[in-house]
């Protein structure tokens, strides 16, 4: 499981950044990047199956728990290796590592998802895939290349 993005919907408002910071004591785990004037893309942990961050974590703080890339704060020394081993640049370290924990322990689920006014975030892979297919179908119905 991860939070999936639909950049066709993202309006670049950065509400997700603020929501994530709010539930994690000021440490945000999601960053909205702007690509020209063209699009905004929230970048966050993919909870990779083969997660680089967990492979280099010597203390076992970052580890896989099923599909989730989980973090055990008690074991972390803040060495900084994980931040350098994530291909997507979505792990931060100061005295400790910080990364998306899917808002573990928050009853209502991921805060970024709930906050997004454009409905651009979802933790449902099927929904994300269905939306993409529907868009493709709509475009095909309208016809032609754009």
């Amino acid at each position, binding site marked *: 499981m991860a939070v999936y993005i639909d950049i066709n919907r993202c309006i670049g408002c950065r509400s997700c950044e603020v929501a994530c910071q709010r539930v994690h004591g000021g440490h945000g785990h999601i960053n909205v990047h702007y*690509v020209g004037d063209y699009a905004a*893309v929230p970048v966050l942990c993919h909870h990779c199956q083969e997660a680089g961050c967990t492979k*280099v974590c010597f203390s076992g703080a970052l580890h896989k728990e099923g599909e989730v890339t989980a973090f055990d704060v008690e074991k972390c020394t803040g060495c900084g290796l994980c931040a350098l*081993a994530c291909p997507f640049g979505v792990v931060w370290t100061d005295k400790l590592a910080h990364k998306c924990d899917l808002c573990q322990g928050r009853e209502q689920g991921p805060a970024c998802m709930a906050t997004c006014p454009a409905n651009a975030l979802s933790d449902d892979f099927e929904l994300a895939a269905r939306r993409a297919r529907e868009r493709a179908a709509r475009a095909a119905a309208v016809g032609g290349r754009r």
Partner: protein
Amino acid sequence: MIRVDARVCLGCMSCSNVCPSQNITRSEDSGRRTVHWKRCKEECDLCVELCPAKALSLVPWDENIPEPEISFDLVACRICGSPYATEPMLQRIESELPAEMQKDASGLEWIRICPVCRRDVEAEGTVRQMVLARSRK
């Protein structure tokens, strides 16, 4: 007292973070990171235990041994040029990740790119996919 094996120290942030007595200091300026181990009389060995490189050991107190200090030039990001990591840390990552993971689909050696630029690359790639998907229709 702490002894440091300078050949294996990564210049990471572990020991300076975990020392409860702030006996290990880390400073960073103009692209250099310096780690300094003060003379330490504590009975604890947290830093020794928690060094990812096993670079530290405890040795008997001796005033004549100077306090160890190591400086690392930080490696510059290949895209933006900002210093972001020590060379030994990057080499450690290169030695621990499977080779096929070390390049992205476009062949980019992302380990040599700073985390901010990695996010930019990821964002640009996502947009490129969207544009491609649209133009295929």
